[in-house]
């Protein structure tokens, strides 16, 4: 099997997805290859913070100004993925209020609108904030759904002709002397092998790019910095809360979709551990105790789950914490750097700057291909974001929409027009916590490379709510079995899905979360007999 493409992009995270979109919008024939599902690495394992750049203003001006520019672009092109909540940088009595002036000055220099507000006013605007604050600065932070953002980029790339292969692992880089010409791959689900060729290969594998580069004969010093986060079961805050001090542990609380997320920690982990991250009890304790300083009510709020990701930082010095490494974009032309033609690595950076990273990588690819096509991703809305706000969209369709209909619009944006929600079956709810209806599940299975329940969760938020799949797991499995036709496989998949949910609940399994686990275990193991082989 041999296929010709203009560019092969490795990695289905936000960087790869964004690059695939940019390349296909510029008319290139694109192949996107991902070892797992899209958004499984660092893309799906972060705060979901739509940075204003303020966090980096003092320590990393370049990143800060990149952030604010991209922030303003995403608010326009990815409206259905973004929640424009605004954010506060708060000063607690134990913090140095003097830092506030330095911070505001740095923000202003980076082009970030930072406004000092009265602590009383801050408390009025955000009642969950620590009442003992002595200072507050308002900045244009927000939240972004990384799964949706990534899926929208992939979807748009496909609309423009890109081919997407998920669960496909690169087994070999094909080289012709010093020229990289393609990749050999294996489908991890079917075992089938294949070979694809293109004059340019872009490595967008995040921390795993280290390994791909090695296969190609190049070396990148990656610094795997693990960050752990906790998800709380509902939105405690409506406005992003940051500590107004040098970046440290657990100092950002982000309201994202129906939940809020506190993070992060930062610890160096061995490269081999990147695929098997675990959240440790000391990390949970740290996140809770520091988080409660931002918002004391967190100490009494139900925790849904814990998770961790690895920042794909490119190491510059021997900083033991990884905090001082630039979050800046690293776009490597391996021809000039290592003498390998047709090979580009795009790494470093952040979720926030994925579009800019994609633009830089695509510019470089176009140059290699001898093309001069301008980038349009800064002004072309992603599919779903063309039509303005959620409220406007649902008011145009229904006179008295149900919450599930509104929630679907919240996720799909203008794409809701392709999701039928009128009849009783189509509109009936599969995931009750997140209000995901049957037709949204169906539509994701048909159009968005869904191979299993976990993929389905990333596309729709099904199973991400309070009950963590207790009610929707078996329902979604039914729909998937109808579509895929293999009941036994879906049954095994359901087991894996429930275990994957448990993995995130385990580090925080006490109180209501533990009761929920026990009830879920009873339903699935004892009533549904999922333990029987």
């Amino acid at each position, binding site marked *: 099997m041999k296929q010709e493409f203009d560019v092969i992009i490795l990695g289905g995270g936000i960087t790869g997805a964004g690059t695939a979109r940019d390349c296909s919008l510029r008319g290139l024939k694109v192949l996107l290859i991902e070892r797992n599902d899209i958004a499984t690495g660092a893309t799906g394992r972060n705060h979901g913070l739509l940075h204003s750049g303020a966090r980096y203003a003092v320590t990393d001006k370049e990143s800060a100004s990149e952030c604010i520019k991209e922030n303003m672009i995403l608010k326009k092109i990815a409206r259905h993925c973004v929640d424009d909540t605004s954010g506060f940088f708060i000063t607690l009595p134990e913090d140095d209020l003097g830092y506030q002036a330095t911070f505001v000055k740095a923000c202003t220099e980076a082009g970030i609108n930072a406004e000092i507000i009265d602590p009383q006013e801050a408390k009025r605007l955000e009642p969950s904030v620590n009442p003992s604050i002595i200072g507050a600065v308002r900045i244009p932070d927000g939240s972004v759904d990384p799964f949706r953002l990534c899926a929208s980029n992939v979807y748009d790339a496909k609309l423009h002709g890109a081919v997407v292969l998920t669960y496909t692992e690169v087994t070999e880089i094909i080289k012709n002397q010093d020229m990289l010409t393609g990749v050999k791959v294996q489908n991890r689900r079917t075992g089938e092998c294949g070979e694809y060729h293109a004059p340019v290969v872009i490595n967008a594998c995040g921390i795993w790019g280290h390994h791909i580069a090695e296969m190609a004969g190049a070396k990148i010093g990656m610094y795997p910095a693990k960050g752990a986060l906790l998800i709380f079961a*509902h939105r405690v805050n409506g406005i992003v809360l940051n500590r107004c001090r040098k970046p440290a542990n657990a100092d950002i609380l982000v309201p994202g979709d129906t939940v809020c997320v506190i993070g992060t920690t930062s610890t160096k982990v061995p490269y081999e551990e990147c695929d098997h991250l675990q959240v440790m009890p000391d990390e949970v304790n740290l996140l809770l105790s520091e988080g409660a300083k931002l918002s004391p009510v967190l100490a009494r709020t139900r925790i849904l789950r814990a998770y961790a990701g690895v920042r794909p930082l490119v190491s510059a010095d021997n900083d033991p914490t990884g905090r001082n490494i630039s979050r800046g974009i690293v776009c490597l032309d391996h021809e000039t750097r290592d003498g390998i033609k047709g090979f580009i690595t795009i790494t470093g950076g952040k979720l926030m700057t994925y579009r800019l990273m994609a633009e830089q990588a695509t510019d470089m690819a176009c140059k290699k291909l001898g093309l001069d096509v301008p980038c349009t991703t800064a002004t072309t809305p992603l599919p779903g974001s063309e039509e303005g706000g959620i409220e406007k969209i649902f008011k145009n369709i229904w006179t*008295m929409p*149900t919450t599930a209909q509104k929630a679907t619009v919240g996720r799909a944006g203008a794409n809701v027009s392709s999701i039928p929600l009128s009849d009783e079956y189509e509109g009936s709810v599969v995931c009750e916590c997140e209000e995901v209806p049957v037709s949204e599940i169906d539509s994701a299975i048909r159009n968005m490379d869904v191979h299993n329940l976990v993929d389905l969760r990333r596309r729709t938020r099904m199973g991400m709510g309070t*009950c963590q799949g207790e009610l929707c797991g078996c329902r979604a499995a039914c729909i998937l079995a109808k579509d895929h036709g293999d009941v036994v496989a879906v049954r095994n998949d359901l087991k894996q899905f429930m275990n994957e949910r448990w993995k995130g609940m385990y580090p925080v399994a006490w109180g*209501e979360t533990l009761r*929920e686990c026990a*009830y879920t275990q009873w339903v699935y193991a004892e009533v549904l007999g999922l333990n029987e082989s």
Partner: protein
Amino acid sequence: MEKKEVSFNNFEQCIKCTVCTAYCPVVPVNPRFPGPKQAGPDEERLRLKNKMFFDENLKYCLNCKRCEVSCPSGVNIADLIQSARRRYSAATPTLRDTMLANTDVMGRLARPFAPIVNSMVATKPVKAVMDVVLDIDKNRTFPNYKAHGFVGWFNREARSKQAAYSKKVAFFHGCSTEFQHPEVGKAFVEVMNAVGYGVELMNEECCGVAMIANGLWNQASRHAKHNVAVFEKMVGEGLPIVATASTCTFTMRDEYPHVLDIDNSKVRDSITLVEKFLFDLIDAGKVTLVFKKDYAARIAYHIPCHMEKLGWSIFTKRLMQMIPGVSFTVLDSGCCGIAGTYGFKKENYEYSQEIGRPVFEQIRALAPDFVCSECDTCKWQIEMSTGYKVLNPIVILAEALDLPATTAANRR
């Protein structure tokens, strides 16, 4: 811990077992109502994300509280729904809603013309006009307003006699005792006097339950504040607040703090129902009841939803079972469908009758002499739908007691 934060987080105790939805009387009859689990804890998360996710279909909640009674995790589900309506609903009460909600004002307006009003609202043309103009269902039978209220009777006939009692209770009579069923108040005074307690009235306002149901939040809060202040004075003087209506009692104890955010903590435990008050006295050996020798009745007991929520139906059962010659059957627990003003509304009438159908059928099958119930709106619904008379337990008790003998037995 601040009170507000506790109730704010209360919905997190939900483990999605969905028992509440199985017990909701609205779910089987009205597909537009999302059910208590979804309307309460589930959608609260979306509402906290953005108020635009509020669903106006929450107005179909009866606020019967059966979801809360069934919840094994202690979630105040119906409170969540009512609070959401209070915080987010864009619907403004209609003229009809305002009229239905102001049970006290309507009573005062109607009273001088009671015979005319009663006969008029019972006629087909007037019903047809109300159906079209006010959206009050034409099939609904209105309770009769009485020309002479309870308070007037009390002032004329009973007030002067109360000074003779050293022990006293403050009686919260409520709107329907005043305007429609003064016999309940008279029975209360007779029984309390017979067991040795004097009765005092207060400058009470309507408890506000119908205002809560119809979205007149500010007015409900004003009434709540007024009543709490009056109760605090009475309780300060050592008088318990005793009522005969289960919904008023429940509202003043639980809805004031949970839905209206009115602090009643100083008086909540002193607000009680007459059945519980009497039972506790009898149980403690402080009061003796002497019944008529020839009293006989076959009684079916319908437990009002808010009585279930209070958990106090046991006191009524025990009291009724003390009466010799009574054959007492407790009906299967279920909502009668009226839910205060809900069933009066045209858009709810059919749901209302469908919800109550099992109750009506069981009553017809039992064919009792009459039905016993603490709630006056249940009374209206059951009387209209089955033709069987419904009596408040205190009225039954007053009828069954040998009052002179009881008075003598308690004169120590």
